[in-house]
């Protein structure tokens, strides 16, 4: 049980794919101008990574080592196509506002990285837990960045007005430069968080 918990939680802060490993960055800045986009992208990505890790972990003994990269890509592309088509059918507005970034989940290095480093070696259950942890770690960062940008850039969160009517939106946050700046602050915040978490766990181990 404890092992499963460790696998799950490492994706959240200590090995957070976006803020610590610095992979899969593109979508994190691009789709976070509103919270609903952030959630949509986070869930789409979590879906793809979970099923890709599950399938590859199930077949890990059958996949020849030399041909593994193309096989991984085909599996990931198949699930991405499913997400892309379902989103176009059921959430046309969301799918339109995210545009090319849904198909680009295929080349999201987080998925490729986890499949290569984890799913191709571990048991299916562990792989799914790892995928959920990574997906959640990705989603919380996306939602966090999107919340800051939407709040200051538009005065709303999820379309609901939070700031008073007289609040003058700071356009900077919605525009591309604001995305980079908020992302920089999130990395800085996560470094601090990681230090705290590690300090707490060393104290616990000592006790």
């Amino acid at each position, binding site marked *: 049980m404890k092992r499963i918990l460790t696998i799950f939680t490492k994706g959240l802060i200590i090995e957070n794919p976006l803020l610590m490993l610095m992979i899969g960055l*593109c*979508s994190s800045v691009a789709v976070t101008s509103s919270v609903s986009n952030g959630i949509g992208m986070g869930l789409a990505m979590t879906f793809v990574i979970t099923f890709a890790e599950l399938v590859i972990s199930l077949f890990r003994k059958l996949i020849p080592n030399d041909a593994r990269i193309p096989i991984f890509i085909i599996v990931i*592309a198949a699930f991405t196509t499913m997400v892309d088509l379902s989103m176009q059918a059921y959430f046309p507005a969301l799918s339109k506002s995210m545009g090319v970034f849904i*198909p680009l989940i295929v*080349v999201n290095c987080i998925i490729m990285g986890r499949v290569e480093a984890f799913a191709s070696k571990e048991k299916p259950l562990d792989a799914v837990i790892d995928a959920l942890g990574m997906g959640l770690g990705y989603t919380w960062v996306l939602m966090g960045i999107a919340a800051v940008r939407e709040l200051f850039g538009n005065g709303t969160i999820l379309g609901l007005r939070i700031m008073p009517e007289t609040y003058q939106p700071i356009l900077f946050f919605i525009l591309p430069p604001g995305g980079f700046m908020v992302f920089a602050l999130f*990395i800085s915040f996560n470094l601090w968080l990681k230090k705290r978490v590690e300090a707490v766990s060393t104290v616990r181990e000592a006790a």
Partner: protein
Amino acid sequence: MNLAKIFISALLIDNIVLMRFLALCPFIGMSTDVPKSVGMGLAVTFVTVLSTIVTWPLYHFVLIPLNLTFLKILVFILVIAALVQLVEFYLKKNAPGLYGSMGIYLALITTNCAILAVTFDNISKGFNLIESVVYAMGVALGFMLSLILLSGIRDRLKTAPIPKFLQGTPILFASTSLLAVAFMGFSGLIK
């Protein structure tokens, strides 16, 4: 005239890195010095143009008549991966010097999202083949331009007094943010 418009807008106004946030991983990872940025930029330009030349006819003359357009993600990524492999083999055999200087970047290009994005853009914007190639050139050179700019900034950052909470990666994104502000100035260039 129209072609010039497409080129300038892909190069500066909709700069792939600074305005559309694509290809951020190589942008951060490969911008440590200027020669490296130029090498990466050239390799990306080459593969982007080549994959445009292959995917555009493939989509219009194979996938559309067969009603298989929903497979485009799968097909395009495989084309790009295969092309990168072919280019790698070809260079290794016929131009070992060039391969030595470009080799390591080539392998990384398959997962460069800018290339896949360009091939999708060509379809969704309804470009013809020549427009697509010009667009691909513009995007790829825009990538190279931003890479060179950031590597220049990184040189200066080595000796600059950086606030403690921004040290390391955060300052790179903060600088990128300022670069993006500068690039927003181009937005009025084409009406």
